[in-house]
């Protein structure tokens, strides 16, 4: 035993040995299997608990309703499963394992592709499939006919005049490697999209415009490496918005939405030519550097508020948000310019409004058939401490509710075209008309093509990997004493191949006898 091999056999590994051991384990099939199962389990909580990145309101509601478990689950990341360290750890390990698995296999496969089929085993009848046949032909002719019978799908290596090795189905391994490599592409694509992509939401009323800068968004969700000062400089104007709803009574789908179309004019950059588009659900408008999606819609109240001397202190469309399928919409009209105190209206905009006994004012149909507003009024300080809260609700901390002449809280029930005088010297409010708004989502994902093409390649590779059969066929021919020759055929396959023996039998039977 040489000194060197003695050293290798020592049980203590040393840092390099440990690293090698860890690497080998990480890239083993067993670990990959374990990581896959872990990934499946780790993904599940995200479907059970609300996720902050998808629905922040439901998430905070949930935590509020579960004062003990909520915060604990929150600390463990159950409301942001797909951004937690434990979830990331699993897929990063899987990624490393994947790379560590694909690289050596690619090297080996390339060597196989270039090299010769393996040696012919000594005992062909020990292989999973075996067949033999006696032919009248001489051995070299017999061997040539085996080669011909194998056809072009096999790479055939005729050895020393009486043996032959052949292999087919290299594309199985190629497909498998393509699949795993493309999975790396998918993971990278998703990551790049997350880091360099951005997404913003904005509500645009009919007649309104939007230019693509960060402050114009209602919410903007940029990836960690996005420079929000450099968003693509396009602008858009919403000219019209059409909505249609099921108005056939019965059938259980009354009031269900049927079609939404937003008519847009856009320019790619200031001064560029204008283009017209019809934006629909499922049919985004692709701009250079971003795509525009129609994700929501609703109603805005176009109102005018005047003070007691008739001066306009507020006018324009105010967006209300739908709370139910009939677009019972809630919102707030904030009038900071009112004198002597700031005014804040709150309440509901109802596209087809009625007042019910038990639920109060609600909408009974989603289309604007008979619009109404049911409002209450506060006065005082709208933004105490200079903080502006949500535009859809009033912060009534520094405000008091305005009463009517009977001392009851003031209730305003108003239809388009009507004006209501406010009690005291507070002026009036006019409901000019209802306008629709479109909820637009604007998104940029620099890697979506990479992700798409990688996943399609993965699919192609997978199909090749699963459906192509890799087979090795060996032949040995010997001359028979009485003339002619005996052909022995043996075959083995990678994985399951229940048709192998059948194939070999047919191969043998199909050989020409002379």
């Amino acid at each position, binding site marked *: 035993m040489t000194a060197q091999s003695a050293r290798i056999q020592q049980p203590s590994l040393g840092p390099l040995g440990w690293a090698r051991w860890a690497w080998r384990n990480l890239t083993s*099939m*067993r670990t*990959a*299997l374990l990581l*896959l*199962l872990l*990934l*499946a389990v780790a*993904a*599940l909580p*995200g*479907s*059970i608990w*609300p*996720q902050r*990145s*998808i*629905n922040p309101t*439901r998430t905070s509601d949930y935590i509020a309703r579960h004062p003990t478990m909520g915060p604990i689950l929150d600390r463990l990341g159950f409301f942001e*499963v*797909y951004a937690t360290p434990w979830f990331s750890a699993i897929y990063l390990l899987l990624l490393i394992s994947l790379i560590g698995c694909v690289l050596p296999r690619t090297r080996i496969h390339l060597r196989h592709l270039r090299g010769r089929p393996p040696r012919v085993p000594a005992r062909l009848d020990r292989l999973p499939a075996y067949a033999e046949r006696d032919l009248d032909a001489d051995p070299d002719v017999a061997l040539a006919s085996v080669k011909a019978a194998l056809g072009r799908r096999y790479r055939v290596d005729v050895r020393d005049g009486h043996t032959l090795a052949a292999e087919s189905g290299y594309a199985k391994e190629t497909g498998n490697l393509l699949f795993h490599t493309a999975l790396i592409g998918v993971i990278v694509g*998703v990551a790049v999209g997350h880091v360099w992509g951005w*997404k913003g939401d904005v509500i645009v009323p009919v007649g309104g415009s939007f230019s693509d800068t960060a402050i114009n968004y209602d919410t903007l969700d940029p990836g960690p490496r996005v420079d929000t000062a450099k968003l693509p400089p396009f602008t858009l104007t919403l000219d019209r918005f059409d909505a249609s709803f*099921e108005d056939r009574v019965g*059938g*259980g*789908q009354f009031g*269900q*939405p*049927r*079609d*939404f179309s937003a008519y847009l004019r856009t320019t790619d950059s200031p001064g560029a030519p204008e283009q017209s588009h019809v934006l*629909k*659900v*499922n*049919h*985004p408008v692709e701009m250079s550097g971003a*795509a525009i*999606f129609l*994700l929501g819609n609703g109603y805005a109240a176009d109102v005018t508020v005047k003070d007691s001397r008739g001066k306009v202190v507020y006018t324009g469309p105010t967006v209300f948000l739908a709370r139910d399928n009939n677009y019972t919409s809630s919102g707030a009209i904030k009038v900071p310019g009112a004198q002597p105190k700031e005014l804040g209206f709150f309440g509901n905009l109802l596209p087809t409004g009625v007042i019910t006994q038990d639920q109060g004012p609600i909408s009974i149909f989603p289309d604007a058939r008979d619009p109404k507003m049911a409002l209450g009024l506060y006065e005082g300080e709208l933004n105490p401490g200079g903080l502006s809260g949500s535009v859809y609700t009033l912060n009534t901390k520094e405000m008091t509710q305005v009463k009517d002449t009977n001392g009851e809280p003031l209730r305003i029930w108003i239809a388009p075209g009507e004006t209501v005088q406010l009690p005291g010297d507070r002026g009036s409010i006019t409901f000019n008309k209802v306008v629709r708004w479109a909820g637009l*989502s604007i*998104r940029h*994902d620099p890697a*979506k093509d990479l*992700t*798409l093409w990688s*996943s*399609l390649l*993965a*699919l192609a590779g*997978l*199909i090749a990997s*699963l*459906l192509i059969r890799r087979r090795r066929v060996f032949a040995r021919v010997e001359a028979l004493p009485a003339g002619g020759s005996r052909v022995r055929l043996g075959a083995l396959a990678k*994985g*399951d191949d*229940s*048709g192998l023996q*059948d194939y070999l039998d047919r191969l043998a039977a199909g050989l020409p006898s002379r």
Partner: protein
Amino acid sequence: MTREVLEQYSLVSLYSAIVVLTLAMLGFIVYLARSAAAAPRDAVEPARADVLVGAGGPAVHRSPDGPGDDAASASGLVKARKAAGPARMLTGLATLLVGVSILFRGLSVHRPPLGNLHEFVAAASFVLLLSFCLWGLKRNVDWLGAFVTAPVLLMLGSATTFWYTEAAQLMPSLKSGWLVIHVTVATISVGVFTLAAMVGLAYLLVDRAEARGGGAPGRLAGLRRVLPPAPELERLSYGLHVIAFPLWTFTLIAGAIWARQAWASYWNWDPKEVWTFVIWVVYAAYLHARATTGISRQKATYIALAGFACIIINYSIVNMYFVGQHSYSGV
């Protein structure tokens, strides 16, 4: 004909299919029970002439007529086969009825009838039944009959009761060619996965019976007599999974393409997407396990069955209770 009338025809057709299929299932169960009972009681080495010429794929299951059979068992087997014939016919009829039901439904709503859970389940049942019938034309797969008709009955029962949705147009976000592609392929895939899971289940049962040895009394031992041997079943189950998995992969990709069109981003971790992903990962793990040396075929099959459990959860619990963007289930 009006929409309502067509919808009624569709439902009546589906109810008829349930009745016919129930009879078919009984027939297949009688077939299994009689064949099992007909097995020689001291089946030390059951006459394996009955089984298997594994040529090029699925098992060929020949009826036992080898010399080893005693007369009683032979006549029992003849009786058993008498039950299988009508069961097969009835299954064919049920398949037709489900197909007709889907057709009427499509005519009633003027769109591919794949817009809600009711329609989806009917279509998946159809795929499952049709593949079973077509397979039955080529080989004798009577032993599989009970394993196919029982889950289909469950599916159809659910589709006509708590998953029932009245025929209607789709929400705007569901009007997309990708929906049709995505859901059609998902349907086929679920049909094949169901078949694969049933064969996998049969494998585990037979495997347990074989492990107990010939002397084991009871029904398991009988099953061993009727069904193909365990390795054959296992290979069959794998073969079916190998068809279903790429289809599911495609479902995932088509769903992502559709999601990008409808909701601006191709992946939102919506509960339905989470489960589609989890199902994919679990089945990938199954294929891996099967290719990993040192992991038994039984263990791998358990992983596949876990994947099937995820499919069931996905189409029942997730559709009904989880809040997400896939509100298309319509229930």
